[in-house]
């Protein structure tokens, strides 16, 4: 089939040609570059050496919060505001809950459907399979690719509030935690360790009778943290309505204020350095893990057999495959 040949040809296209396409803002190039990230393509290092210098200018925001709070509706409304300011918006929609080995169904685009036809909004869904360096690293690379393609705002959206989600969201300059009234979300979030990484709190469904109560609850939890560390700013709490868009303008202001504060205090530089450092470590760890797996499957295949037979202990075995012994 001719079309199939064409597709295979594309898989082999050179990294520099693809990078050129991305930088020129070509959507298909951008989409294919992200596919290379997902597959851990051999051209990825070459591609990124060209794209990386063009990143670092965008506003990056991480969104996290339990399923069903209406994150996507808020994001849809927030995108509208950024579009009104003529900013190009990229969305990385991440579902870490999809099982690693099996397939996945990613359905979070649906709520952003109003923006499907806006040529300056690019939405990409990511599941959790096969990412070198973990999903957080892969989604980060996808976001950076969007930055290189000229997107001014990058939104990292996650489903849920587990450790995986926190990692994805905290790659951004500003982390927004979305909660809904009642339901004990705040307590859950506290347990999951998300409260600490969130810079802005958003209580959605502001028309709910318990909305103010939940805001007060979150505030009291935050103020306890504040007593322990009086220098840290108390994160703002914004009440929103995803269905009507009420409060989303305030949310945008709160995000902007957080950025402003970070830049002013030098926190931005510290934050980005720490995040890039984490990224390098997780990428290197991912590579190392892959190499070790390959050794165990190939040249060191006998090592595990000896461990199973109790002839070699696991610690010595790990030294062996690391070539330390």
């Amino acid at each position, binding site marked *: 089939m001719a079309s199939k040949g064409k597709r295979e040809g594309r898989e082999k296209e050179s990294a520099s040609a693809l990078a050129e396409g991305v930088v020129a803002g070509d959507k298909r190039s951008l989409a294919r570059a992200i596919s290379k990230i997902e597959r851990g393509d051999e051209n990825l290092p070459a591609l990124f050496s060209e794209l990386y210098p063009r990143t670092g200018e965008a506003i990056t925001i991480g969104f996290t919060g339990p399923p069903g709070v209406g994150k996507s509706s808020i994001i849809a409304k927030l995108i509208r505001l950024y579009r009104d300011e003529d900013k190009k918006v990229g969305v990385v929609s991440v579902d870490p809950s999809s099982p690693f080995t099996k*397939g996945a*169904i990613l359905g979070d685009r649906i709520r952003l*459907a109003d923006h499907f036809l806006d040529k300056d909004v690019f939405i990409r869904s990511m*599941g959790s399979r096969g990412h070198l360096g973990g999903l957080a690293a892969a989604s980060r690379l996808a976001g950076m690719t969007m930055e290189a393609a000229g997107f001014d705002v990058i939104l990292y959206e996650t489903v849920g509030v587990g450790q995986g989600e926190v990692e994805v969201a905290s790659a951004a300059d500003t982390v927004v935690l979305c909660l809904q009234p009642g339901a004990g979300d705040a307590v859950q979030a506290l347990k999951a360790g998300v409260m600490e990484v969130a810079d802005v709190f958003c209580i959605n469904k502001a028309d709910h009778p318990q909305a103010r109560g939940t805001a007060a609850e979150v505030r009291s939890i935050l103020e306890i943290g504040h007593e322990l560390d009086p220098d840290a700013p108390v994160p703002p709490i914004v009440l929103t309505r995803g269905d009507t868009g009420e409060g989303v303008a305030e949310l945008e202001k709160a995000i902007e204020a957080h950025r402003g504060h970070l830049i002013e205090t030098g926190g931005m530089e510290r934050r980005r350095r720490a995040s890039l450092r984490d990224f390098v470590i997780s990428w290197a760890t991912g590579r190392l893990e892959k190499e070790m797996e390959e050794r165990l499957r190939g040249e060191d295949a006998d090592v595990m057999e000896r461990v199973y037979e109790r002839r070699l202990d696991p610690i010595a075995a790990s030294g062996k495959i690391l070539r330390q012994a």
Partner: protein
Amino acid sequence: MAKVGLDGHDRGAKIIARALRDAGMEVIYTGLHQTPEQVVEATIQEDADAIGVSILSGAHMTLLPRIVDLLKENDAEDVLVFCGGTIPKEDIPKLKEAGVGEVFTPGTPTKKAVEYLRRAVPSAS
């Protein structure tokens, strides 16, 4: 997996989506009431290998050729288009001529769709 047209009959789309997922594929579900433009735009952004269109509203002769044409306009004719739904037998050759890879009528076992995709899209297996 895309639901074009205005009908809300998403049982078939969901069953196929689940079957493809269970076969190890990554499925992006667009949700209901999508226009061909929206479906093609999502396909491009997600770099999908294939579009499965579920349509029961009778508008298949309007909407499916439109999707194929839009893919061509966007230099994405390498994306495979297949569909399922209430589609009269005599429309099937017309749809295939218009560039639709395969047409599944009601009652087709999901494994046929899985096998078809594995054959037609090398990276799906």
